[in-house]
């Protein structure tokens, strides 16, 4: 009895959270269909794998960004963290550490940097945007010191495994999304939303706000660093500045996916969908043969459209 009513509540909440995203889902679906019409090869295993591999790192950094935005924070250090992750992977995997050591090092560095940033933001009560901006300079510097110019080494088999002609990257994304779902069911996961939506209320209900902040920064750091690891595997090497564009793109994708700047508003699935739109858009515009100048304009129009359509659908629904 109790269980039935709680699952009914769960369903109702999920429906309400999805409602704002219907417009985005439609836009993304339309683009995917258009892409498949323009390039039927996407429906083969190889084509699908290559496409999802190009999307995968953006999906990861978008999750890293959304995680913080849901919590009322933001990070400008995503791009540099991706670069640092790639640099560490490419400099450790060729040494005695090997691949397992390299993966551990990347995770440890992402976790450590994230936790320290989170601690500074939460305990010293400094604005996240300033702390992560400063952090982005430091991390960029460290990446450039470790690897002054592109280079390093990632074993060929790892590149083939993660970014070959099989959809391993896509499966990893599904696993990570599954883990996020499970994490959300834990008190700590739930607290991320609570602390972002209404920090005072959450605090009074016994949510350890500071700890939640530190944990979300740490998790975000791990995701960004892992995106770097993937980029290193995909490209077969490290590049100390390759991640830079990810900072802005991660914010764009998250906002596109309906994640609000003020915390507590939005969903991870929306954010991931937003990143998918940003990625598929590039390929669709290529196959439509848009010249680069038109691509800049079209990109802007699509982003505005993808935000406007859901907003107007909501208005229309409210008026009805």
């Amino acid at each position, binding site marked *: 009895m109790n269980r039935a009513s709680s699952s009914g509540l769960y369903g109702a909440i999920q429906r309400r959270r999805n409602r704002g995203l219907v417009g985005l889902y439609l836009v993304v679906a339309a683009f995917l269909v258009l892409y498949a019409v323009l390039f039927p090869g996407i429906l083969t295993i190889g084509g699908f794998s*290559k496409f999802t591999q190009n999307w995968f790192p*953006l999906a990861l950094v978008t999750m890293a960004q959304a995680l913080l935005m849901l919590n009322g924070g933001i990070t400008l250090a995503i791009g540099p963290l991706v670069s640092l992750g790639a640099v560490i992977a490419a400099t450790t995997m060729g040494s005695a550490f090997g691949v397992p050591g390299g993966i551990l090092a990347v995770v440890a560095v992402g976790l450590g940097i994230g936790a320290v940033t989170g601690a500074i933001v939460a305990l010293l009560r400094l604005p996240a945007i300033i702390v992560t901006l400063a952090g982005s300079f430091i991390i960029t510097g460290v990446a450039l010191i470790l690897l002054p110019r*592109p280079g390093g080494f990632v074993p060929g088999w790892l590149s083939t495994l993660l970014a070959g002609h099989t959809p391993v990257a896509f499966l990893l994304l599904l696993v990570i999304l599954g883990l996020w779902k499970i994490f959300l069911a834990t008190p700590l996961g739930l607290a991320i939303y609570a602390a972002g939506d209404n920090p005072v209320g959450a605090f009074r209900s016994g949510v350890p706000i500071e700890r939640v902040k530190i944990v979300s920064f740490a998790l975000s750091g791990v995701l960004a660093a892992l995106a770097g690891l993937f980029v290193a595997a995909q490209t077969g090497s490290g590049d100390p500045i*390759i991640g830079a564009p990810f900072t802005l793109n991660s914010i764009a994708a998250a906002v596109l996916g309906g994640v609000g700047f003020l915390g507590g508003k939005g969903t991870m699935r929306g954010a991931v969908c937003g990143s998918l739109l940003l990625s598929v858009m590039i390929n669709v515009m290529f196959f439509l043969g848009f010249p680069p100048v038109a691509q800049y304009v079209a990109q802007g129009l699509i982003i505005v459209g993808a935000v406007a359509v859901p907003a107007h659908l909501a208005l229309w629904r409210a008026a009805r």
Partner: protein
Amino acid sequence: MINVNETSSGALRRLLKATVAAGLVLAAFSGVANAASNCVKGDRKAPYTIGWANIYSVPTWMKQTEGTITAEVDELKKAGLVKDLMITDAQGNAQTQIQHIQSMIDANVDAIVVIAGSSNALDRVISDACDKGIAIVNFDSLVNTDKVTAKINTDSNEWGGEAAKWLVNQLGGKGKIIVMNGPAGISVSDDRRKGAQPVLDANKGIEIITETNTEYNVAPAQEAMTSLLFANQEIDGVLSLGGALSAGSVLAFDRQGREQVPITGENARQFLELWKEKGLKGWATMQPNWLGALSVYTAVQALEGKSVPAFIKVPLPVIDDSSIDSYLARADKFPADGYIYSDYDKALFDKLLAQ
């Protein structure tokens, strides 16, 4: 009887084997003759579709380079060799460039001309394209992999070395200089700087006060130089490793009312005009924009079955007091913030390809 039969059939078998072997050798040779260039398999027929995978189209140098590419494609279209040109702009994002090149492979273009956004990041996708028999010509900013049809570039090390040599000579081997570099972590700026080092090491009288790292743009370079001018009363020369950097430096000296010092640079129109206007002691070289046109030409030559060199080193054109007037005479044909490149024609391309 049986014996004889056996020997004859044995001989026949041997003869057959020999024929097959000879055939194989012939096939191998003709294979080489048909597709002497790397990546090209000889199964693609004119007119070709060419993909131009640019890393970033906004800077003026890139626009001018794209101009030489489209002009060359128009020529080749008239000759019936090219049917289509697909242009992409990765907006500075190496990751997006990988995605674009992947799409070009998916669209089965015949050739890809590329300026790499990262020296290593494109290696895997480019070798994928090479495996598909697509002719890859890479210029300006080069990739690491050798699985390309041709790489075309000037020598950035030589750029730095020649610039440093000229400056050291101007200063008589003694003086305080400032080194202006492009952004850190970019191979081109790194290589130019590295090329200058042996020359500076060999001349102990030259003291480097400090170095700057800025975008290849006038404004940030001017800003950086302006603050250095406040801090340093004695500067004897500027080793600038980019044209916009030089223009920024000259403007900074000018605004501060400081006397101009010998300066190296690049064929940026603004710098060349300042050079003439202020009567500078100057020296410049260039990354010719027609490397773009040459790349398209090379790709088509390779697809047509001609053998092209795996690396085409383009000699650095030098601008000094004797040749600057010939460049400034053509200035009005180039954008105000653009680069006045040396003349080029098909004969020059053929000469470079024949190295």
